């Protein structure tokens, strides 16, 4: 364990920011979903890093729960995307402008 924990945290911050940029820039809803998954992964990485830094197994257990929630979220989100696509032509965020109030 020669690599300091801060390096992992910086890498996690970079990955999280890439996910933020992806959600804000991309229009394809599926790619936006992938960016959300990337942010979840960045948080998982920092959880494991804190678990190592603090010598506490709780961080890894939390990552386990995050994985379960991510799987459920993807299932429901892709179901919503599929059902939207049945009614609309495309699945970009612009096609959903009918949702604005």
């Amino acid at each position: 364990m020669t690599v300091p924990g801060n390096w992992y945290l910086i890498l996690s911050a970079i990955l999280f920011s890439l996910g933020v940029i992806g959600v804000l820039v991309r229009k394809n809803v599926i790619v936006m979903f992938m960016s959300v998954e990337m942010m979840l992964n960045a948080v998982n990485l920092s959880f494991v890093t804190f678990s190592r830094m603090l010598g506490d197994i709780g961080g890894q257990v939390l990552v386990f729960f995050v994985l379960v929630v991510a799987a459920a979220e993807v299932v429901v989100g892709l179901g919503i995307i599929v059902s939207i696509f049945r009614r609309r032509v495309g699945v970009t965020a612009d096609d959903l402008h009918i949702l604005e109030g």
Partner: protein
Amino acid sequence: MVPLLLTAIAKPDLIVFLAAALVVVAGGIGVISYRNPVHSALSLVMTMFGIATLFIEQNAQFLAAVQIIVYAGAIVVLFLFVIMLLGVDRAEVFSRERIRAQRPLAAVAGVVTLGEILILAHATWATGAKAANGPIGNSSDNVFKIAQVVFSTYLLPFEATAILLVIAVLSAVYLSKRVVVNVDEALEAPEDEVSLFAAEETEKRAPKEQSSKNDDEVYEV
């Protein structure tokens, strides 16, 4: 540069970290920059593998295996299935912006977020408090330690995840059920969910529906 290189050779952990970090960042940039969603999904797999490598390097072997199985094996495959099913594997058009200057603003927001997190990372994280859930153990008993904590301290959240997964499965089945494709019925029943978009869709789909009405493919919710 040369001392850094010598240090890296002396410490294989550092080499693994740098290689995995390169894979992770390259995959992340690929996800947000490829025009084709399929390429984005494959870049996402690359990121997942890099993260799994970093998990192994930090003695989280169980999570590394779960990461590969759940993310690369299930979630990304689900993404690819949906992409293929919907046929959206074409490049998106950036010329028509609904919000002016959205992309530069988004890039600025992302950079600001990165700076904010890095500034926060300089704060003192470790409190020195004793471990609340038990020690992390060494590389040989990682699964044992996690199982011990999950089935004692976190037993209730663990059961809650079971309920959550059942709810997710039920909602996925419900969402992917076939809806009314008969326009006349949809117009007669305005409270039906299909009428949410019925106003625009009626003219568009009307000729097609007339032909398919004679078939036995008219299902109801």
